């Protein structure tokens, strides 16, 4: 190359710097997008590989359904291909913080997996020892590693919790109907560090063994906290595995081999452990059953007692008033009784006093009398004695008279049977005083005796009379004396009576005093009692509301305890039952939550990279190419001159090749730099919301760099060469003459007379101009259409992503309900689901509600190997489901009903499992082998996650049991949703608070919360689309500028000519750009049309499993794209109008190209 030629090149560049820069920038943009998107996927994979290597991620996870013994661990270690084994333990539990349940964004109770952290290994590792046995090393994001047994590390990237865990929080682990004490020493842990575990590369946490079956987050606790005597799983690393990328076929094959090897030793190991477990646990279960029975009895007794107490309190609360009233009445009554007693005491006292006074008078009278006869007593005594004597005399006289009479009788009337003698003897014996007479009497003397005796009788009678009169006299005296004595006695009596009356009177008055005191005391006592009674009543009243709850709580506690015990027993029993079917799950990294997603994301990026950037790149290359072609064409005269001067064609061609090379190579280098070092970071930023991997590893990828570089260079340089070659073949003389103007031609439209005639002159010119140069027409239309398409597709991807939540949630979307009410276990709340539903439906703010059952599975079909996470939803009332979830086929618009003939599956699930109506699909149970089959009755529109809807009857016939309705899906009244945001939110939270006061409501989750969380995850993808859109917009600007430039340069002579004719500036602009406007509009139209299939293509490739992107592009995106192009066109036109103004007629027309 001569110096002159070199100078010419430099000058050319300077002179056409606009064009040079255009080529440079378009090449840079093309390469940036191409290499950037191409590099992102491998960058993602490299990043993961580096991460896995550094954290020593396990290759294989062995999980035994019956746990692993030390022996098992040894056995696994001996398997061929195994490099190291790290036994581990974990336990799933619910999380509580500050005594409150943590709830996830879907409203389910938040579950946590506590994993063992080997403190010795951790310490070694911190000391710099790289022990292969220490796998799955966590990456500390914040805080420190635990030092004490009660400290833990917590998951950094959990997005599903409604609580943000931070260092210093004390978390509490609670078992799900099980006694966590069987597994863990303690339940409270303090968070000291926040980590990312390589086991979880994304925010996906996989399944939990408890609760809703969805794991919320994980924590690491020092291994010594675990009290189980077995390991739950063993992490295995495979020798040499790290020499390959974890995403390579070689790696996967190596791992598959070792997986098989481990599975091979599992049978024997399981047999041994089964035998051990049987020996250990079967007696334990038997004993446990007994203990359980005893415990249950005890609990029932206690509860009965409690029930009695409740009854009492309730009775008291209800009847306490009455009792209190009665007591009050009694109190009043007893008071008045006492008062009455005191009153009657007083009147008695008064009566006593009167009597006393009377007695006193009597006494005084008696005393006066008695004083008259001071010796009455002696007199009386004497008189008495006298009287006695007289009486005795009478007696004696009478007695002797009597005897005499008797003798006389006997003597006068002798008994014939006895001899007189005998009679006499006997008589003598009997009457000794008459012995003499009688002894001397004989039978013959009896008449003497009788005479004597008769004389004696007369004497005796006389004597008696005397005695009698004496007596009578004495008697008088005696009686008188007696009378006197009597009055004396009377006095005595009066005295006594007076004393008595006095005593009585005294007693009466003290009684009254005592009565009064007693009354006071009684009053106080009663008042006290009343106060107590009132208090008791108040208490009863206060308690009656809560007593049921307390009882329910106590009952629930008791039931829970029993349940726990039952659970333990059942677990033991189940474990024993499962010994026969026990197995090892030997899983590779793909089973780790999110791992496959990560790989897929990278692969999806690759898929994205397959189409979009290539398309972008080719448009860029095409623009560069045509620009270069123009450039060469314009330099025709110069070429001729050089040729005439004797420069060889090759040397002249070199000029253009160098020009092309410099522009495209420099642009490519910049593009590659941006592509490799800036682009992936922007995209990774978007993905970092999903993934927890560390900073992106940026690698210069020679393959893509070279492909992009050379394709760009080749296309631009070959364009230059081809364009130059054609001209260089012609001879110098002709080259120096102006190129024969392109022939004017009649266009097809002219034959359509009625149209052509209606066009005004300008339009005719425009139409001809457009048709004259088909190459330029094609270049312009394709360039503009391409850019339009790119913008629409970029925006469309964004639309499709946004559409997911817009189409999925809310009015006129798939899920139209407002809230999910999570119901408590009816065993705990004591309220049946039906009652709960009734209560909900009767709430004035609730429009309608339905009970639903929701369960998560992995599901698929025999037609597709890969299984998807899918949720089964069963409404209690089949007909009602459509009020909450739209059951419409997207393509046909057919609206389904839940029937008995089968299940409805969501679109993406059907697509992925290659299912049509009538096909069978299945869900897989936790044991990973049992597959439950069901028939597809319809395919319904859905955008996020996968669902299978079925009626209760179908559920029952499929699963063999009735579903448990643990949710109530609720729709609020339309007028609540119509309120403005603030008012609606407050109304909603009020409703939620009201509902949660109920015992049967665990939590209320509004759809908005779920949507927000969901959108949070997707928002990252916006960055990706924005990069595309911005790239496309820049490309559009460059293309439009370039096209306008070319247009003007090509027609510079026309421009000068019409200027000479006296066209005003605006007429010149219109003359030139009218055509551009049409071309732009046509380009836009083509671009918009082409965008539809292109968008669908890109979307389908880029889609992730759980989501179905919206299939359509928003009108606004079309408008935006068209708007951008139009605005840029106008901008470019304005810019160009300055250039047009400056076109020098003289110079332009003078120079014959």
């Amino acid at each position, binding site marked *: 190359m001569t110096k002159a030629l070199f100078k010419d090149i430099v000058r050319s560049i300077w002179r056409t710097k606009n064009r040079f820069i255009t080529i440079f920038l378009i090449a840079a943009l093309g390469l940036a997008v191409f290499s950037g998107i191409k590099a992102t996927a491998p960058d993602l994979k490299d990043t993961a590989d580096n991460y896995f290597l550094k954290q020593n991620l396990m290759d294989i996870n062995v999980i035994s359904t019956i746990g692993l013994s030390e022996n098992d661990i040894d056995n696994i270690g001996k398997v061929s291909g195994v490099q190291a084994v790290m036994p581990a333990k974990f336990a799933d539990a619910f999380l509580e913080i500050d005594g409150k349940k943590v709830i996830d964004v879907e409203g389910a109770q938040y579950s946590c997996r506590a994993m063992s952290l080997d403190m010795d290994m951790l310490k070694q590792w911190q000391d710099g020892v790289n022990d292969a046995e220490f796998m799955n090393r966590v990456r500390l994001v914040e805080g420190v590693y635990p030092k004490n047994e009660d400290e833990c590390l917590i998951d950094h990237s959990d997005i599903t919790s409604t609580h943000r865990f931070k260092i210093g929080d004390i978390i509490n682990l609670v078992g799900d109907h099980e006694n966590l004490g069987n597994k863990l020493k303690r339940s409270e842990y303090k968070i000291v560090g926040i980590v990312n575990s390589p086991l979880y590369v994304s925010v996906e946490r996989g399944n939990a063994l408890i609760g809703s079956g969805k794991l919320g987050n994980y924590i690491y606790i020092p291994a010594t906290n675990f009290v189980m005597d077995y390991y739950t799983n063993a992490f295995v690393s495979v020798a040499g595995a790290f020499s390959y990328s974890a995403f390579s076929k070689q790696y996967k094959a190596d791992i598959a081999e070792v997986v098989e090897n481990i599975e091979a030793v599992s049978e024997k190991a399981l047999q041994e452990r089964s035998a051990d477990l049987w020996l250990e646990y079967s007696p334990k279960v038997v004993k446990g059953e007994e203990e359980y029975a005893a415990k249950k009895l005890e609990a029932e007794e206690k509860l009965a007692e409690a029930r009695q107490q409740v009854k009492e309190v309730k009775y008291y609360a209800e009847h306490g008033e009455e009792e209190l009233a009665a007591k009050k009445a009694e109190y009043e009554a007893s008071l008045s009784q006492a008062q009455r007693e005191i009153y009657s005491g007083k009147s008695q006292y008064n009566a006593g006093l009167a009597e006393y006074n009377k007695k006193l008078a009597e006494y005084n009278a008696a005393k006066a009398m008695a004083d008259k006869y001071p010796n009455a007593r002696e007199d009386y005594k004497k008189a008495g004695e006298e009287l006695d004597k007289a009486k005795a005399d009478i007696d004696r006289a009478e007695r002797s008279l009597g005897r005499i009479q008797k003798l006389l009788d006997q003597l006068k009337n002798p008994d014939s049977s006895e001899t007189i003698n005998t009679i006499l003897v006997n008589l003598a014996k009997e009457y000794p005083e008459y012995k003499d007479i009688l002894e001397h009497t004989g039978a013959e003397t009896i008449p003497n005796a009788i005479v004597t005796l008769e004389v004696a009788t007369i004497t005796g009678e006389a004597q008696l009379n005397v005695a009698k009169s004496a007596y009578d006299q004495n008697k008088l005296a005696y009686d008188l004396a007696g009378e006197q004595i009597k009055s004396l006695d009377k006095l005595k009596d009066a005295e006594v009576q007076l004393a008595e009356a006095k005593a009585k009177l005294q007693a009466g008055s003290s009684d009254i005093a005592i009565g009064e005191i007693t009354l006071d005391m009684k009053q106080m006592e009663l008042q006290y009692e009343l106060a107590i009674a009132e208090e008791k009543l108040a208490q009863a009243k206060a308690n009656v509301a809560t007593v049921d709850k307390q009882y329910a709580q106590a009952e629930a506690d008791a039931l829970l305890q029993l349940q726990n015990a039952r659970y333990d027993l059942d677990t033991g029993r189940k474990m024993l039952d499962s010994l026969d079917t026990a197995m090892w799950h030997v899983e590779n990294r793909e089973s780790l939550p999110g791992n496959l997603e990560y790989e897929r994301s990278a692969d999806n990026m690759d898929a994205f990279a397959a189409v979009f950037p290539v398309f972008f790149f080719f448009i860029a290359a095409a623009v560069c190419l045509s620009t270069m072609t123009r450039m060469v064409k314009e330099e025709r005269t110069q070429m001729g001159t050089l040729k005439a001067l004797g420069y060889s064609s090759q040397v002249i061609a070199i000029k253009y090749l160098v020009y092309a090379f410099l522009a495209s190579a420099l642009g490519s280098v910049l593009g590659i730099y941006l592509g490799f070092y800036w682009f992936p970071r922007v995209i990774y930023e978007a993905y970092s919301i999903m993934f927890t991997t560390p900073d992106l590893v940026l690698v210069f990828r020679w393959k893509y760099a070279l492909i992009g570089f050379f394709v760009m260079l080749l296309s631009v340089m070959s364009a230059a060469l081809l364009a130059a070659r054609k001209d260089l073949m012609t001879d110098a003389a002709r080259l120096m003459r102006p190129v024969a*103007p392109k022939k004017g031609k009649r266009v097809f439209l002219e034959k359509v007379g009625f149209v052509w005639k209606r066009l005004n002159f300008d339009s005719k010119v425009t139409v001809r101009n457009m048709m004259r140069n088909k190459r330029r027409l094609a270049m312009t239309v394709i360039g503009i259409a391409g850019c339009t398409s790119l913008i629409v597709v970029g925006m469309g991807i964004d639309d499709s992503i946004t559409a997911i939540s817009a189409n999925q949630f809310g009015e006129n979307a798939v899920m139209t309900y407002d809230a999910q009410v999570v119901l408590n276990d009816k065993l705990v709340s004591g309220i049946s689901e039906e009652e709960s539903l009734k209560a909900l439906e009767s709430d004035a703010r609730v429009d309608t509600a339905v009970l639903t059952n929701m369960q998560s599975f992995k599901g698929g079909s025999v037609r597709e190997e890969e299984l998807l996470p899918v949720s089964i939803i069963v409404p209690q009332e089949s007909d009602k489901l459509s009020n909450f979830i739209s059951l419409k086929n997207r393509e046909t618009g057919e609206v389904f009903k839940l029937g008995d003939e089968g299940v409805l599956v969501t679109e993406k699930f059907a697509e992925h499992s290659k299912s049509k109506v009538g096909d069978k699909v299945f869900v897989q149970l936790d044991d990973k082998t049992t597959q439950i089959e069901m028939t597809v009755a319809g395919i319904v529109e859905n955008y996020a996650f996968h669902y299978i809807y079925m009626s209760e009857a179908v559920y029952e016939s499929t699963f063999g049991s009735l579903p448990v309705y643990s949710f109530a899906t609720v729709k609020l009244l339309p007028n609540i949703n119509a309120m403005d945001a603030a008012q609606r939110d407050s109304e909603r939270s009020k409703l939620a608070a009201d509902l949660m006061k109920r015992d049967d409501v665990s939590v209320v989750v509004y759809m908005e919360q779920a949507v927000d969380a969901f959108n949070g995850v997707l928002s990252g993808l916006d960055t990706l689309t924005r990069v595309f859109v911005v790239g496309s917009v820049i490309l559009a600007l460059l293309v439009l500028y370039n096209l306008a430039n070319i247009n003007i340069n090509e027609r510079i002579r026309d421009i000068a000519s019409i200027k000479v004719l006296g066209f005003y500036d605006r007429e010149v602009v219109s003359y030139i750009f009218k055509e551009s406007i049409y071309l732009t509009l046509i380009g836009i139209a083509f671009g918009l049309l082409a965008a539809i299939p292109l968008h669908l293509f890109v979307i389908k490739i880029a889609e992730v499993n759980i989501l179905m992107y919206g299939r359509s592009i928003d009108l606004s995106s079309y408008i935006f794209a068209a708007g951008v192009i139009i605005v840029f066109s106008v901008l470019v036109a304005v810019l160009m109008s300055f250039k047009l103004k400056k076109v020098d007629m*003289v110079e332009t*027309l003078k120079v014959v190209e």
Partner: protein
Amino acid sequence: MSFIEFDSVYKRYKMGEITIAAADGVTFEVEEGEFCVITGPSGSGKSTILNILGGMDSANDGKVRVGGDLISDYDRKKLIEYRRDDVGFVFQFYNLIPNLTALENVELATQISKKALDAQKVLERVGLAERLNSFPSQLSGGEQQRVSIARAIAKNPKLLLCDEPTGALDYNTGKQILNLLHEASREAGMTVLVITHNLAVAPMADRVVAMRSGKVQKITLNEEPVPVERIEW
């Protein structure tokens, strides 16, 4: 007062350090309706003064009057209007718009001019009645130049300026073209200025301005111009 007056007109170009005067104090006059020929060797400044007169270029100094108006003081817009209504241009290489038919090329001019003539009639007058709908590429050089002249005349301008109109044409065709231009002057009363380096043409002009090195060397008035048919070269 003459129809065209050039009064000490200067046009200088800066080429680096050097300033070249393309018109170096040009002064001449042309009367209305005259057929004027400007001759001179290459670089003598013929085209410069024609461009200035046509409103395509402007002088650095001096006064240019056309019909009494001082066009050298016109601003950009007035110049465009001047070109639009008062000036017709004919170039050596015709400068037709390639994808417009002959008629359309003429219409391009007539549609913007106020007092334009009927395009078809003008074309018929220049002898192209049969080629109205032909594209420039379908026409011979002479025919193209006729279209070009028709385009200039159709605006019915006061001034018809022709820069080497026969330069690319053969002898006979050149004669016909000159005849056409002459007719325009005689019949339509246009003032026609023709640049040519062909001195043989001079006798047919009313006035001949000879230029050299940016200066008017000589002005010759022909009392009896010779019809072009009789001129040979």
